[in-house]
């Protein structure tokens, strides 16, 4: 299980039957009917907009903001694609929810010991070589599962072969790329997708700030230590002069004057 896996969601094919949502709930052992929005009990949701059905779930970013944000490293990008959550580590700070550019993670607000909930790309099934529950269940092949390279290739092929598609694969480059790809016959902006200003992966943004820290600490530390040395030295000189020689008092030391 080394090849990266991915999903392709063809918005033109989706009929909004909610089978994927039901399959998702079943695969994760959650009772109940499909829900219109993501929740702590729905990791997949299908909404309708202008006659199009749009799935919403975790994008499984190549460089996930959530995983870089999590202070205890409870979130992790696995080598074959899924971004998974180790609830045993979580302390409930909810920084992942804030950091996610797609606002996907949900929280069990109704519980006193709440955990974060999101799509895990059927980690267990996929690691056994099976497709995700949603892809397997889709009756019209609107969602297909496969190796990331092949899935991207398929997406490009469809766009090239059929002019109805917008020439854009959502998820290929957004936020540094993801494991979920959408193709559509309408601009993604009009379908309520999150359109980033640039494709910079979000972990890079905070990394840039963190990388400056050692320099600032070293330079700042040296400066402060140097200033301390100087002022302390002055103090000692003044002290010695005050004690040793009988110096005029109150002292009018030029050095002491200039910074008053």
């Amino acid at each position, binding site marked *: 299980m080394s090849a990266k896996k991915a999903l392709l969601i063809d918005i033109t094919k989706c009929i909004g039957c909610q089978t994927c949502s039901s399959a998702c709930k079943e695969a994760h052992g959650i009772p109940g009917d499909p829900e219109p929005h993501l929740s702590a009990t729905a990791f997949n949701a299908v909404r309708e907009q202008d006659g199009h059905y749009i799935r919403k779930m975790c994008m499984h970013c190549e460089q996930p903001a959530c995983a870089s944000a999590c202070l*205890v490293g409870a979130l992790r990008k696995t080598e074959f694609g899924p971004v998974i959550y180790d609830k045993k580590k979580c*302390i409930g700070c909810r920084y992942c929810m804030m950091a996610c550019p797609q606002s996907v993670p949900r929280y069990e607000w*109704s519980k006193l010991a709440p955990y974060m909930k999101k799509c895990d790309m059927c980690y267990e099934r996929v690691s056994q070589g099976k497709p995700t529950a949603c892809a397997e269940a889709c009756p019209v092949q609107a969602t297909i599962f496969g190796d990331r390279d092949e899935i991207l290739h398929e997406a490009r092929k469809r766009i090239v072969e059929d002019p109805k598609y917008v020439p854009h694969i959502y998820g290929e480059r957004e936020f540094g790329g993801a494991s979920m790809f959408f193709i559509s016959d309408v601009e993604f902006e009009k379908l309520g997708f999150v359109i980033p200003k640039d494709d910079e992966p979000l972990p890079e943004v905070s990394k840039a700030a963190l990388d400056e820290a050692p320099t*600032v600490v070293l330079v700042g530390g040296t400066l402060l230590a140097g200033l301390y040395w100087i002022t302390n030295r002055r103090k000692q000189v003044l002290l010695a002069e*005050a004690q040793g020689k009988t110096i005029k008092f109150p002292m009018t030391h030029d050095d002491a004057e200039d910074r*008053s």
Partner: protein
Amino acid sequence: MNGTTTKPMFTVWRALLAVIFLAGAYATYLRFVVGWSAATNLSDAQPWGVWVGLATLCGVGLSAGGFTVAAAVYLLGMERYRPIARAAVLIAYLGYLSVCVGYAYELGLPWLAWHAFIYWNPHSVLFDVCFCILAYTTVLTIEFAPVIVEKLKWTGFRDKFLHWHHRLATAVVLAGVLLSSMHQSFLGGLFLIFKGKIYPLWYTPYLTTMFYLSAIPAGLAMVVITLYLCNRSLKTKVDPEIIKEVAWVISPMLIINLVWRMVDLIKHGGGAYLFLRRPETAYFWIEIALFIVIPVVMFNTRWIMKRPEGIYWSSAVVIMGFITNRINVSINSLERATQAGYVPKWPEMAVTVMLVTCAVLAFRYAVLYLDVLPRRAVPERARRWLANAGIAANA
């Protein structure tokens, strides 16, 4: 209180205290026993609320006076301000302690908070913040420890402790200044990863700098109002000249903030948003007015600065502006992207107010029973840097 004879048992202030603690206790019950939705208005769209925006961001930010004054006195030899150093350190110490306590409310699984010690993710800004806050709280404990230890009756331990403390003090203060500078900035760094969600008036790749630059004047303003209030109601005798001098530093720092902010906004494309007819524009200008414009005018008006109340109120406006800034960055700037419509529920505020009250009470008793601030007026000395010929260096 403090054993005087004619004070009434029941006062407005005590009634207020009782209300604050009762409300806080009930809010605590709601949060830990009843549930999140009874205690907060947090939601999936708005997972962070005032417990982060007020309790953490402002709690840490307003503690910045601690490292500023400590650096001035212990590292830069500004002996003149030694009388207020302990108070500044205590403000910071209590600020950080209340942030730590506040996190018990904010975390979903507070009993697992120790995971931060064993599972490290150095790529996380929050990890660095957490690490620095814990380290700096430890440093503050060490910095403040002599104030308590010197009151102990076990003379052997006391003298040994004070001796070693004095030898290590400089290193501890230096570490403290670096740690607190680092995470004052990192608190801003937390918001960098929300790029795209944050309204352009508050987003800049240098949020770290914004947080650092704004924390210093706010921290000093906090020191000023604390000293003023101590002089007024706890009968301490802090030289009003010292308070005035600390206040004098605030105004130029606010101007630096303004210049930096405007240059940064224009450089990073926020300039176009300065005058749109949107609620964010109002939040932004309220922030600039309270944090910078009004205080700068007040600090530079002679008849206001002539009286201690004037200095007090100018500093209070700085603090209000600072709080507006942090709330804007952490809550208001995200509203357009998240559409959460978040307004804090009363228990969220009750907990925050209770934490602040605890800190204020602790400060009061520390001033009353420990040697935090001078209790009698020190005779006027020559106003000079390194005044009194380094006698303090001998201490």
